[in-house]
C-alpha cells in the first residue's frame, strides 16, 4: 500500500494536483477525446449524436452499476452477459406464449414476462452468491460456471433462435415510450441508478458492502453479517442485469439468445474505467455511470471516425488495461 503521509518528498500541492486528476481525470479525458475526434469528424459533437450516445449509455450504465455492486466486495460477475441473454429469452417466451394463449389479457402477459425476467435474475444471483459466499468457491470460477449455465439455458429454451413477436406494447413500455418527452429507457435507468445510489450510501447493507470489500476480516470482527450481505450483493447484481436485459429486449423487440455477448466485458470495463477498484471497497454509482459514458462515447467516436471494428476491440482492450493500471497507482498497490 502506498501511504502519502510517509512520503515527505511529495509536496501538498503535488498531492492535491494528483488528487484533482484522480477525481476529474476521466472527465478531462472524455472532453479531450470528444474534441479530438471532432477535428477528424465534426459529426461527433452534433446534438443528434450526443443524444444518441446518452441513449446508448443508459444500457451500459445499468450493467456497469450491476457489475460495480459485486466488484465493491472484491468479486466480479462473468455470468452477467449470459444472464442478460437468458432473461431476454425467458421473458420473451413467457410474454409471447401468454399472448398467444389469451390475446385479451395483455397487461398480465407483460407483467408475467417482467416478473419472470426479474425472478430469473434473483435465481442466478442466489446461485452465484451461494457458491461464493457459503461454499467459498471463488468468484471467477463460480461465475464462469454460471456463465455457461445461463448460456445453456438461453439457447435451450429458445432452440438457439430469436423469440420473435414480443408484444409491441412491451417495447412501448420500456423503449419507445416517453414521459414528458423523456424516453422510457432514460427514466428507467435514472430511477434504478438513483435507487441503487441510495441503497449503497444510505443503508447498513450498502455500507457493509464497502467494508466487506475494503477488508473482509475487519467486517467479520465488526460483527457484520458478511455472508448474507455477500449473497445479497450477487442477487442485486443479477437483478440489475435483468432490468437491463428487459430494456434491451424491448429495444430489439425480440428475445435474443446472443443479446449479452459483449455485455460482461463492457460492464467490467466501464466500472473499472469509471474508477471502481478491483481491490474492493472503492466505487460509486457515479463512477459506474461515468465509465459507461466514456466507453459508449469511445466506441461512438471510433465508429464515426470509421475505425475498423477489430481495431476498436484492440483500443478498448488497451483502455481497460490502462484503467486498471491507473487504479493500481491510485490505491498505491505494490
Amino acid at each position, binding site marked *: 500500500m502506498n*501511504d502519502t503521509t510517509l512520503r515527505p518528498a511529495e509536496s501538498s500541492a503535488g498531492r492535491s494536483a494528483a488528487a484533482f486528476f484522480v477525481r476529474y481525470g476521466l472527465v478531462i479525458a472524455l472532453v479531450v477525446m470528444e474534441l479530438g475526434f471532432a477535428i477528424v469528424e465534426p459529426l461527433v459533437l452534433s446534438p443528434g449524436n450526443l443524444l444518441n450516445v446518452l441513449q446508448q449509455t443508459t444500457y451500459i450504465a445499468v450493467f456497469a452499476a450491476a457489475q460495480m455492486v459485486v466488484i465493491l466486495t472484491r468479486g466480479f460477475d462473468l455470468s452477467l452477459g449470459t444472464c442478460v441473454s437468458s432473461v431476454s429469452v425467458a421473458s420473451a417466451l413467457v410474454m409471447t406464449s401468454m399472448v398467444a394463449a389469451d390475446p385479451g389479457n395483455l397487461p398480465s402477459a407483460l407483467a408475467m414476462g417482467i416478473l419472470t425476467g426479474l425472478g430469473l435474475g434473483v435465481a442466478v444471483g442466489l446461485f452465484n452468491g451461494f457458491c461464493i459466499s457459503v461454499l467459498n468457491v471463488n468468484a471467477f470460477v463460480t461465475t464462469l460456471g454460471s456463465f455457461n449455465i445461463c448460456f445453456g439455458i438461453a439457447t435451450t429454451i429458445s432452440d438457439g433462435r430469436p423469440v420473435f413477436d414480443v408484444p409491441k406494447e412491451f417495447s412501448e413500455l420500456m423503449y419507445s415510450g416517453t414521459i414528458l418527452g423523456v424516453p422510457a429507457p432514460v427514466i428507467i435507468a435514472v430511477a434504478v441508478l438513483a435507487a441503487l445510489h441510495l441503497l449503497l450510501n444510505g443503508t447498513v447493507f450498502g455500507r*457493509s458492502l464497502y467494508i466487506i470489500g475494503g477488508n473482509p476480516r475487519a467486517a467479520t*470482527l465488526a*460483527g457484520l453479517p458478511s455472508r448474507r450481505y455477500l449473497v445479497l450483493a450477487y442477487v442485486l447484481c443479477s437483478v440489475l442485469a435483468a432490468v437491463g436485459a428487459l430494456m434491451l429486449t424491448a429495444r430489439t423487440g425480440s428475445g435474443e439468445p446472443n443479446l449479452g455477448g459483449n455485455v460482461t466485458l463492457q460492464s467490467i470495463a466501464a466500472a473499472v474505467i469509471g474508477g471502481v477498484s478491483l481491490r474492493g471497497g472503492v466505487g460509486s454509482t457515479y463512477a459506474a455511470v461515468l465509465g459507461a459514458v466514456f466507453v459508449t462515447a469511445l466506441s461512438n467516436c471510433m465508429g464515426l471516425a470509421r475505425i475498423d471494428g477489430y481495431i476498436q476491440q484492440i483500443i478498448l482492450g488497451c483502455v481497460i488495461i490502462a484503467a486498471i493500471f491507473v487504479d493500481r497507482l491510485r490505491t498505491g498497490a505494490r
Partner: protein
Amino acid sequence: MSEQAGTLLELTGITKRFPGVLALDDVDFELRHGEVHVLFGENGAGKSTLINVISGTFAQDKGRFVFRGEEVRHLTPHKARVMGISPVFQEFSLVPDMTVDENLFLGRERARFTLLNKRAMRATARQIIAELGFDLDPTRKVGTLSRAHQQMVEIAKALLTDVKLLILDEPTASLTEAETTKLFALIDKLRAQGVGIIYVSHRMGEIKQVADRITVLRDGRKIATVAADSVSDTELVELMAGRKIDVLFPRIDHRPGERLLDVRDLTLVSGAVREVSFHARAGEITGIAGLVGCGKSELVRAVFGLEPIAGGSVSLFDKEVSSFDPLAMLRAGVCYFPSDRVAEGLALARPIRENVSMAALDLPGFARGQVLRRTEERRAVQEIADRLKLRPAQIEPAVGRLSGGNRQKVVLGRGLSRDIRVFLFDEPTVGIDVGAKLEVYELMKVLLDLGAAIVLVSSELPEVLNLSNRVYVMHRSRMVAELTGADINEPAVLACFFREEPAAAAA
C-alpha cells in the same frame, strides 16, 4: 582458506518502511564465512523483513549492502540466488503437482539438445538427498509429502546451487527429533565449508546448540549482537522482550470490582489453548504474558468468537455464553482489538468515520433498521475522534493515510462507539510510536475509571508488568501461573517460561 575468518555479508544502516510501520530502523548486521548467526526477536521485530531484504524480496529504503566485499544494489530474488544467497522460508515455494526432483530443478532444468535431461537431474537429486541423509523419494509428488518432508525438499533445493549464504527461517518447526539432528549435522558440514548461515528461530535449546553469534531485534531495531556462548537464556529473553527505558508507564489505580468475564477450562479445536481458566474484573487490567505462539492471542480471540472452541465455558456478567460470534459478543459488551490492524482491523480504503462506526451499525444511534443516520453518525464519530486525540481531527480521510498510532486509535474508537464493558487488547502497542503508546495507556486508564474490565495480551513484558493488577502467564497452550502484587516481576514471569523446558525436551 583465508576467507574463512572474513566477512561474508555486511549490512549497514538498513532501514525499511511499510505504511505506518518502520519495519527496520537503521539495522547493522554482519555475517562471517563459516558462521551460524541466529536472528532472535518477537514477531514483528523485523526478522523476516531483514531476511527478505537479504534475499532480494524487498529493497531497503536506506543502507549499504555489501556481499563478499562488493556493494550490491537493486537486488532481486533471482540475482541473490545467482550470487549464492539461498533462502529457505517458512512458506514453501514448491509446486505440489511436481515430483521432488522436478521441484529441485525448477527454473534451472538441465537440458541436452533442448530436451530435459531427466536422468541426469534425477541422479543429481538422489545424490544430494543421500548427502543430506534425508529420507526422500525423488519420484514422489511433493503434494503427497508431509510438511517435514516438504521442508527437506526446500532445504535440498537451496543447497543445489553453489551456496555461499544460506537462510533458514524456523527450519525445525516441522521436523522430528531425528531429522533435526540430521539438519544440524548438515549445518556443521556447511559451516566447515565456509558457508555463512542466517538462522531464524524462537527455540532456545536449538539456538544455543547451533549459534555462533546471536543478533537480537526488537521493534525493527538491532538491540545487540552477542556471542552465543557468553549469554544465558534469561539474558536473551530479556534482550528480546526489552526494558523500555524510553516509555514511562502511567500510574494506574486498580479498583477491582465484580467479575465480568470468567473463562473456565477453555480448550480450542486447534489445540492452541488447553484447559485454560482465567477471569477479568471491572476496574482492573488483567495481563496475559507469554512467549510468541504460547496461545495467549488465540485465547482472547476465542472469547470473541474467532476461534472454534472444543470445550470449557465462558461466562459474561455471570451468564454463560452460548453462542460465540463477534456480533453477539459486541452486543454483550465485549470488544476485541486485533494485533494486526491492517489484516484484521481496518478497511484502509474507507474513511475513518466508517471504520469507527462499523461495529455499531446495529444500534439505533447509528441506523434505524437498515437506514443509516449519517448526521448522528458523523457527530458521534467526531466526538470519539476528539476524545482519542486523533490528529488531524478529521474523520473523512481514508484510514490508509494515517500513521500506525492513529490507525490504532481508529480501531480503539470502535470500543467507544457502543457500550463495551470488557476490552480485549491483543498487542495494543505493536508498531506504534512512543507517544501513541502513552495515549493508548492513558485511554486504558480512562476506560478503567468508567468501570471497564481490561484484558491485556502482550509479548512486551514491561508493558504487562507495569500496567496489570494481576498477570497470568501462558506457556505452551496452558496457563502456568497467576501472579499478583509483589510477585509481578520479570524473573517470576521468565521462570515460568523455562520451568517446563527440560521435561518437554526429555519427552
